[in-house]
């Protein structure tokens, strides 16, 4: 009776359960960070990797697409970690941004968004070609997926790509976003990601909002607004360029 009541209360308050679960995970991660790495690896970096591991477990258990949030008890994670709260919190990080920093890096940030889209698309297209794809539609769709997992399906749908190719493009974007979350804190020092200027360039080059959001949170939360600012323009620019100009370039190079 006690057990049943307990579960019923938890399942009736899933968002609150999510707060408690994430609180415990963050606490445990900071504990590990202090004890095992003496603070060298940021507590939030460990928490994000922990979140990804839990997502993997949830995916294996349920066969769903929402990680741990597919388990009814943890459904609140879907709300807490959904785009609505994420964007709301990202906007809040802009409070305290120094406007002159933003202005100083504004142009280079905008340029890096365009470079980021073109480079990701090209790299993805080359990989698709290397794996044997020879038609421009499939190559462009997979290239677009290497930009973000939204640009991929938008481009694929616009060009009339096969659904298996669209699924591949989503997967490429997912790999990118997960990898950005994990790799950013590890590589930040080497690439000079330690100031607002490079954070804006980083956001523009990577473009995956979730990857950039988590990557910077794990590196230095003070840089979040700068990276997020450019990253939020990336998907739009990608959806503009990939099915039009970039597709035409692929068509010209491949020939069919």
């Amino acid at each position, binding site marked *: 009776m006690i057990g049943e009541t307990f579960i019923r209360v938890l399942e009736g308050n899933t968002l609150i359960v999510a*707060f408690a679960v994430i609180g415990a995970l*963050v606490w445990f991660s900071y504990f590990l960070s202090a004890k095992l790495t003496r603070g060298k690896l940021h507590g939030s970096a460990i*928490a994000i990797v922990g*979140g990804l591991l839990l*997502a993997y477990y949830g995916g294996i258990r349920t066969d769903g697409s929402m990680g741990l*949030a597919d388990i009814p008890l943890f459904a609140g994670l879907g709300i807490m970690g959904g785009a609505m709260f994420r964007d709301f919190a990202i906007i809040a990080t802009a409070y305290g*941004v120094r406007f002159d920093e933003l202005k100083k890096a504004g142009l280079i940030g905008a340029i890096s968004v365009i470079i*980021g889209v073109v480079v990701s698309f090209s790299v993805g297209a*080359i990989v698709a070609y290397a794996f044997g794809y020879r038609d421009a539609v499939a190559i462009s769709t997979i290239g677009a997926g290497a930009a973000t997992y939204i640009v991929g399906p938008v481009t694929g749908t616009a060009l009339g790509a096969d659904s298996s190719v669209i699924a591949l493009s989503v997967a490429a974007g997912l790999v990118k976003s997960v990898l950005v979350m994990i790799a950013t804190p590890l590589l930040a020092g080497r690439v000079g990601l330690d100031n607002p200027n490079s954070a804006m360039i980083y956001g523009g080059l990577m473009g995956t909002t979730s990857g950039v959001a988590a990557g910077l949170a794990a590196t230095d939360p003070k840089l979040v607004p700068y990276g997020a600012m450019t990253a939020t323009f990336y998907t739009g620019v990608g959806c503009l360029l990939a099915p039009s100009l970039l597709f035409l370039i692929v068509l010209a190079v491949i020939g069919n």
Partner: protein
Amino acid sequence: MVIYGVALLAFCMLTGVFLGDLLGQLIGVQANVGGVGLSMLLLIVLVNQKHPRFNISVPTEKGINFWNAMYVPIVVAMAAKQNVVEALSSGWLAITAGIAAVAAGFLLIPLIARLSPGQHNDR
């Protein structure tokens, strides 16, 4: 009051995302173009107003800073709802494309940073 800060954030987000959506339709793409970025710009402009009728009191600031502080936990929750299984089981093409795109991005950061004006002041 704390709610003033939260409501200010809400106003900025709704306005910014609305403009981002319009911008997307205007240039003919099926996506929101920079809605969150525009919201952030709006917030920065509003809180830097020097108008005497519009000043951010300490409780109002608390409402904004609460969500600022919730950022990391929200991102951890976001990580926990990613489709990690699909990312890992999607085969080598997707994994290679994802890795290559990320590697290219990281390689380009220092190169582009070197091009930006006034960069030596930041280091």
